[in-house]
């Protein structure tokens, strides 16, 4: 059934849904997802906090740690209260409903679909896994406004941005009906399109005279199922583990924050060298470990593809580490450790949207490109435009995310061979539990990718500007100059990191 609805293109993470007979949970999948979730928490608390914390001056490290820890805590609660429901229930193409607010209807036996037919995981582990994404994304932005933003403004900004930029993006990109809905069968169809419509489609299918007729019915059914999917999901924008939802989204918000807050006092005049690169090294290693949960957990199962995602993540990170180091070696005569660590993160960012769609050799190329391009962004682009993105949230996450999203469109190509072969895009539509790979079209896929990228940029930029304006008129954006000089640790939090 060469059904052309790219709407079915599996994007990345996906939703809870009520179970049916053949649906089953494998404890191996559950075990893996529990671990993946724990690792992504670790990636934020303390991983990201330390990565950022080492890069600021010693008088500001606690403020960075605090912003990350408290952002994480705040968003974990908000996610549970309303975020999960708005992102992962049926609503329209842009946002879900409030049906599962306060975890209403979620139990220890409710299930969430994976990307494989008839394969489910406990809904709570899906909710928890997604919680970690919802918590780390805003936390990424902290790097952009570090060393100068008011703590109360940080919390207010996070709340607004999470609600109006993160939740819609997650819904648009990741919310779909799940693979079993695309099997036109009695047990599943009712839950997916309602009783009446299901009976109707089944009758039509039974009546279909030949294969072409059957295909038409399946196409119509697929369209009906997809009606409630996320808008970008239906556009076919591929984003395996969050290139657009997480990295472009946060990167653009960081850029806006950097511009609207203005430069740190003393920038360009005083030395602002990282106060402790060992701390940054610790954070980098934790980010790497957590990212394995982040990327490989996004497959929602523990299978051969999960293993490939893990391999790709390692290779993307490794290749970008080498590329950034080489880039510095050539342009400055030295390969710095901070460069290597930055490269590692850039590689992980770029491989994030691609990791489940590309072969290992492609992952190496993506990593290499990410290393060179992000180095360029951080050194030349930033200097040229002149914003003070303190810890390069835009240069690494924004630029790396965009690069990764576009390269995904290229390397997903299933027509290549060996270690270069992409996975192509799965077509789940069938009247049995089979599924197949759709034909690859470079231009169509790139257009889909660009849809995803542009939506993330525009939404995040607009929401960020508004959120910052609200902060400005209510609690104020920046601390006093005197407080900034003294350091936020003392002035905002009443303590010092080192005695």
């Amino acid at each position, binding site marked *: 059934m060469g059904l052309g609805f790219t709407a079915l293109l599996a994007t990345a993470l996906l939703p809870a849904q009520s179970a049916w007979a053949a649906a089953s949970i494998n404890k191996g999948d559950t075990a893996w997802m529990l671990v993946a979730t724990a690792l992504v928490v670790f990636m934020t608390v303390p991983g990201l906090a330390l990565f950022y914390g080492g890069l600021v001056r010693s008088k500001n490290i606690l403020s960075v740690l605090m912003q990350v820890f408290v952002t994480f805590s705040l968003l974990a609660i908000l996610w549970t209260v309303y975020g999960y429901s708005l992102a992962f229930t049926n609503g329209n193409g842009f946002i879900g409903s409030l049906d599962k607010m306060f975890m209403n209807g979620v139990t220890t036996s409710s299930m969430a679909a994976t990307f494989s037919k008839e394969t489910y995981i406990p809904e709570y582990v899906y909710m928890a896994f997604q919680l970690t994404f919802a918590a780390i994304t805003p936390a990424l932005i902290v790097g952009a406004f570090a060393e100068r933003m008011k703590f109360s403004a940080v919390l207010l900004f996070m709340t607004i941005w999470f609600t109006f930029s993160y939740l819609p993006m997650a819904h648009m990109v990741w919310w779909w009906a799940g693979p079993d809905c695309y099997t036109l069968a009695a047990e599943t169809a009712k839950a997916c399109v309602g009783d009446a419509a299901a009976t109707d489609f089944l009758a039509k299918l039974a009546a279909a005279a030949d294969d072409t007729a059957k295909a038409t019915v399946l196409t119509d059914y697929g369209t009906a199922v997809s009606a409630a999917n996320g808008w970008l999901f239906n556009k076919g924008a591929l984003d395996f583990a969050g290139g657009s939802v997480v990295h472009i989204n946060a990167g653009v918000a960081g850029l806006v924050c950097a511009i609207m807050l203005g430069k740190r006092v003393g920038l360009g005049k005083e030395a602002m060298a990282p106060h402790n690169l060992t701390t940054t090294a610790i954070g980098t290693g934790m980010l790497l470990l957590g990212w394995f949960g982040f990327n490989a957990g996004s497959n929602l199962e523990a299978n051969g593809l999960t293993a490939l995602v893990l391999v790709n993540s390692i290779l993307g990170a490794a290749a970008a580490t080498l590329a950034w180091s080489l880039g510095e070696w050539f342009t400055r005569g030295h390969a710095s450790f901070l460069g290597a660590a930055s490269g590692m993160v850039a590689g992980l960012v770029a491989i994030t949207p691609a990791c489940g769609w590309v072969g290992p050799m492609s992952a190496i190329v993506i990593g290499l490109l990410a290393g060179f391009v992000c180095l360029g962004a951080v050194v030349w682009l930033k200097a040229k435009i002149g914003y003070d993105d303190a810890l390069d949230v835009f240069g690494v996450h924004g630029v790396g995310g965009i690069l990764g999203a576009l390269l995904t469109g290229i390397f997903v190509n299933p027509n290549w061979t060996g270690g270069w072969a992409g996975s192509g895009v799965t077509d789940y539509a069938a009247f049995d539990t089979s599924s197949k790979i759709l034909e690859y079209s470079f231009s169509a896929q790139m257009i889909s990718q660009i849809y995803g990228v542009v939506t993330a940029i525009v939404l995040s930029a607009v929401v960020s500007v508004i959120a910052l304006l609200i902060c400005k008129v209510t609690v104020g954006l920046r601390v006093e100059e005197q407080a900034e000089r003294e350091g936020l640790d003392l002035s905002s939090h*009443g303590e010092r990191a080192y005695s």
Partner: protein
Amino acid sequence: MKYIIAIIKPFKLEQVREALGALGIQGITVTEVKGHGRQRGHTEFYRGAEYAVSFVPKVKIEVAVESSLADRAIEAIQVAAQTGQIGDGKIFMLPLELAVRVRTGETGTAAL
């Protein structure tokens, strides 16, 4: 020769160094110190414990100069280090009897 010791605010160091450089004074030695004076410290809380920290981070600069330069050096430091706020620091001048350059063994103003 004179031995000038100045206690200043840390973020003024670069400006002071440049001001001295403008007078042709290159050699200076810098130490991170903590100061107590009119500028009050602050209070820190660590769980149940409260500490009144009476010391404020400062930077100490030491410069040996020939006597004739001393006044101008002191003035340069004073101007460059000033913010007008409490805690700007002090400049002290002590007599210096001998200076030796370790590398060459030169003494006196030649060693500075």
